[in-house]
């Protein structure tokens, strides 16, 4: 990604990422949130994976699954904590600026920052985080407005779109056989446990598969 000016790279990453805020907005409304709640999620949660997880669990279980929805989105947010550790030492910010930097710490801003060198790292972080935030929230609103005017979400295949969104989110992370195995087993456990436990719990059981595989000895570890 070193090719291209940092401003151009940030803008294109921000716009491309923001664009799928449309699908988030439409799916969030289909899952039972109103337009305001949908926009608040994009403004304050601001982490695609967690947001999709929240509405995914909520959409299939309703209000009763709210605790599981909160827990799933929280657990999926953990990677941002690791990005934050890296960005913290890279940015060296203090006070209010640090509070804002924390909110902008997501996959994309971290990736662009780490792909640059020297002073462009901080610039890449702020620009990418800012552009993603801007476009993600605008597109969320557009998606929510569209979603609330189309009626039954199933007729438009929005339930399949939600599944495809998770495929697209997980796919780049299946880098080696250990990750692919983790993906396979956790999906399997989530599916077969679904008839027997409350809605949302299968997702948490899937997460537990990840912890179990972590606890196993790993030959490939360096």
């Amino acid at each position, binding site marked *: 990604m070193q090719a291209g000016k940092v401003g151009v790279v940030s803008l294109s990453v921000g716009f*491309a990422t923001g*664009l*799928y805020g449309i*699908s988030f907005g439409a799916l969030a409304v289909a899952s039972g*949130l109103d337009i305001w709640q949908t926009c*608040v*999620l994009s403004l*304050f949660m*601001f982490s695609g994976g967690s947001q999709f*997880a929240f509405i995914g669990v909520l959409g*299939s279980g309703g*209000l009763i699954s709210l605790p599981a929805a*909160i827990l799933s*989105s*929280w657990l*999926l*947010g*953990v*990677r941002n*904590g*690791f990005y*934050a*550790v890296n*960005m*913290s*030492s890279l940015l060296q910010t203090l006070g209010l600026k640090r509070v804002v930097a*924390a*909110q902008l*710490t997501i996959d994309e801003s971290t990736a662009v920052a780490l792909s640059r060198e020297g002073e462009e790292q901080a610039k890449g972080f702020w620009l990418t985080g800012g552009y993603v935030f801007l476009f993600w929230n605008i597109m969320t609103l557009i998606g929510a407005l569209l979603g609330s005017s189309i009626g039954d979400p199933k*007729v*438009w*295949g929005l*339930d*399949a*779109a*939600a*599944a*495809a969104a*998770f*495929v*697209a*989110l*997980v*796919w780049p*992370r299946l880098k080696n056989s250990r*990750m692919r195995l*983790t*993906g396979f087993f*956790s*999906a399997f456990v*989530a*599916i077969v446990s*679904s008839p027997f436990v409350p*809605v949302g719990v299968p*997702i948490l059981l*899937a997460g537990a*598969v*990840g912890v179990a*595989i*972590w606890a196993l000895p790993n030959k490939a570890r360096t």
Partner: protein
Amino acid sequence: MNLWLGVLAASAAVYSWKLIGFLIPTKSLKHPRIADLAALVTVALLSGLVGVQTLVSDSRVELDARLPAVLVAIVLMVLRAPFIVVVAVAAAVAAVLRMWF
């Protein structure tokens, strides 16, 4: 539980990771073993969501238009299609299948 309360609680919970990352001493979380756990849990949760969103409805395993749509999504990921295309095509596949059958 009130839906608004849930939205705000979940948002605060997700933000807490980001803020913690900025506040704690840098060394402690850079341990590769901890980073490995985060990577595995992320993949596991997302894969669980793929499984449930594709094959489960109302706590029952159900084969319907979602499965072919997700298979098409996987093919598109292999072909390196952008996110928005993958999601839109999957929706279209499911919608068209439901129109026909």
